[in-house]
């Protein structure tokens, strides 16, 4: 066994779930992760010990993914749209809902089928989707994301901002716009 490479093995779940959000198909996600690990293996001597191996793997994966997309663009990729200011919280408040008694989980998940967040994320245009996945799901810092994607920190922040708003807008649409169901104040 090459004990060095075992350091990379442990990120297979993280890479796979992100690959799934990017490709939206289990077979493509699996293929993308395989290609990522093959490259990581081939270039393992280029990895600097002591640096973040998860970020290194994600850099490889996003590069492989973007190259593939260039070769055969997916016809169904959502196009980038101009940003619109949106937050579920503001929307609820505007509609006079008892927002202080409602959690996002109640609004989005418990009224739906359970997969809304994944679907909403997958409907975001790729540049935003990548940043939201890396920051919100994989917990990378802005600086790490900037380095993984080869973009500026300011670009990370603006894509994140727009991505989250677009995500909330989709989730709001999925939730069938929470009915103005009266919530009894003080009820448990």
């Amino acid at each position, binding site marked *: *066994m*090459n004990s060095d*490479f*075992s350091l*990379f*093995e442990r990120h*297979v*779940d993280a*890479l*796979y*779930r992100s690959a*799934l*959000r990017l490709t939206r198909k*289990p077979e493509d996600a*699996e*293929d993308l*992760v*395989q*290609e990522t*690990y*093959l490259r990581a*293996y081939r270039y393992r001597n280029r990895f600097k010990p002591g640096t973040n191996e998860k970020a290194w793997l994600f850099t490889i994966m996003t590069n492989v993914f973007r190259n593939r997309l260039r070769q055969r663009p997916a016809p169904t990729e959502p196009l980038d749209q101009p940003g619109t200011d949106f*937050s*579920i*919280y503001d929307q609820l408040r505007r509609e006079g809902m008892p*927002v*202080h008694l409602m*959690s*996002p*989980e109640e609004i*989005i*998940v418990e009224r739906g089928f*359970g*997969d*809304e*967040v*994944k679907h909403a*994320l997958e409907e975001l245009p790729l540049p935003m989707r990548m940043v*939201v*996945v890396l*920051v*919100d*799901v994989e*917990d990378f*810092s*802005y600086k790490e994301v900037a380095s993984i994607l080869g973009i500026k920190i300011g670009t990370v*922040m603006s894509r*994140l*901002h727009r991505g*989250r708003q677009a*995500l*909330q807008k989709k989730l709001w649409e999925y939730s069938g716009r929470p009915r103005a169901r009266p919530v009894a104040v003080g009820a448990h």
Partner: protein
Amino acid sequence: MGDHCEQTMRKLSVYIDRELSDAEVRSVKAHLDDCPPCEKVFDFQAEMKRLVRKECCTDDAPARLRDWVRQLATEKPPARDREA
């Protein structure tokens, strides 16, 4: 909404992402501590971020992929089954 509220709202997501400087963290925290309306927005958005993470962390890699990766560390890298 006062100036402080607006400033806090502008920095809120960066605060939630723990990307503010220590001084900015202190000023946002101080405001949230004595402004219940802003604190509620904070709670909601922080919960929103947790929800996205939680809902998207449910897919684990299939066992055969995991095995394939484990084998990669052995002497002879396996052929990619998908190219067969």
